[in-house]
């Protein structure tokens, strides 16, 4: 039997640069590798990996496997699974980590089944059991109402990690590491999917995931208008972005790209202001990583008040304009 050693991060590039999730995975992977006293490797696949490989080292990798192939320019499952499968065969890692992202949630289950191992998706916490050296995988279940801890004896140990659940290391350009170019011959006959076009629908301005402040509205907003007026006014004032809960997006009041929750965006801003949002666990799954949650809701028993740090019970039509006016006054003074 092959020996399984080290931690392999399946990295992602975004516009040619190391994606934020990859820096988080490297932060988590570094800790696991140190606990195991083994190496941290990172796989990067694209048509040209370039400087991102050095970045991966600066964020914690000991070794970067750069897979360059024109077919890997953008994410295509059939090509990426082949590439990842070959890198895993070469590295024989004990642990394989990917992001719980558009790419990772598509790639990781296929790779796990191909390798005949198990996978825990959307993990919030990963540790190594000091005795068995197996990965202890904590992940939310039942729409975030509960958490489960899994382990598996199959190798490699695979997990995908939720965005913003892990902290990246400080970038250190002086870190030493090695970049290994791996040539992977892709079987073109097995690539049955092609991406014809990519359409961006995101509202102009600040990306929700990058906003330090998010002002979010729910079903209680009653219609699309407040998202353009009162919520936007407050968000602009705080240099933040507007988000919504799933009912608001399902009703067509906001574009799906603004939907925060289990099946939407997962955000972790400094300040999250939830207006007329009841705080169902599916919504909280998307924002519970926020540093400070502030809630305005007319129902004193709304779940959001169990999650918030500051709250006001009242109709948003009464509370919000006065709140915004006072914020404006305080920021001006």
């Amino acid at each position: 039997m092959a020996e399984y050693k080290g931690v392999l991060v399946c990295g992602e590039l975004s516009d040619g640069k190391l994606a934020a999730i990859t820096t988080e995975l490297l932060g988590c992977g570094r800790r696991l590798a140190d606990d195991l006293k083994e190496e941290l490797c990172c796989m990067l696949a694209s048509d040209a990996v370039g400087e991102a490989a050095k970045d991966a080292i600066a964020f914690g990798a000991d070794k970067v496997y750069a897979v360059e192939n024109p077919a890997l320019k953008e994410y295509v499952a059939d090509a990426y699974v082949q590439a990842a499968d070959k890198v895993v065969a070469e590295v024989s890692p004990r642990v394989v980590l990917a992001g719980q992202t558009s790419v990772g949630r598509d790639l990781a289950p296929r790779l796990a089944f191909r390798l005949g191992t198990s996978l825990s998706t959307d993990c919030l916490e990963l540790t190594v059991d000091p005795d068995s050296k197996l990965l202890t995988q904590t992940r939310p279940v039942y729409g975030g109402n509960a958490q489960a801890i899994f382990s598996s004896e199959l190798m490699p140990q695979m997990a995908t990690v939720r965005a913003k659940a892990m902290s990246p290391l400080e970038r250190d350009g002086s870190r030493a590491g090695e970049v290994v170019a791996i040539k992977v011959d892709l079987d073109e006959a097995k690539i049955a999917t092609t991406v014809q076009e990519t359409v961006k629908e995101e509202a102009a301005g600040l990306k929700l995931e990058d906003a330090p402040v998010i002002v979010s509205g729910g079903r209680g907003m009653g219609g699309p208008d407040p998202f353009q007026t009162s919520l936007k006014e407050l968000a602009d004032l705080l240099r933040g972005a507007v988000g919504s809960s799933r009912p608001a997006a399902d009703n067509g009041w906001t574009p799906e790209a603004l939907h925060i929750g289990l099946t939407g965006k997962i955000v972790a801003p400094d300040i999250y202001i939830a207006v007329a949002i009841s705080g169902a666990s599916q919504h909280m799954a998307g924002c519970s990583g926020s540093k400070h949650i502030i809630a305005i809701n007319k129902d004193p028993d709304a779940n959001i008040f169990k999650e918030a740090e500051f709250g006001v019970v009242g109709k948003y039509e009464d509370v919000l304009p006065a709140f915004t006016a006072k914020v404006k006054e305080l920021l001006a003074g």
Partner: protein
Amino acid sequence: MGEYDIIFCGRQSSDWDAGQVGLGVAEILGLPAVTLARKVEISDGKARIERVIPDGYEVVEVKLPAVVTVTSELGALRYAALKGIMAAAKKQPTIWKPADIGLEPSQVGAAGRRSKLDKLFQPVKEGKCEMVEGETGAEAGAALATRLREAKLL
């Protein structure tokens, strides 16, 4: 067990939320898979699929047969008409037990699990929300802003 052009699956279950079934089926059957579809059109042995990505969607073309997992954006459920409900009552669903599809007891249920559930728990909520009050909603709103300034959040 039968012929198929497309196998549709949901994106994830509402209990374990793993999101692995569709992709596992694809891998076992050696089929391509497209996840998070919000629109599917078929022509000439191919499916043209709008796949949801974080900042919009991509149009993916896949050769059939294929596995497609769908998102809630695919559309709302139709209401069942009375005629349909009556017709459904007369139909008998086919129910297969593991043995009917050639599986051994060791391959299903807890015995067939690839990973072990060590613990299931509800995270403790701290529930330390500070309620800001006022005579009216407007007063409470203004008081909230003042309180946030005190707490250096503004």
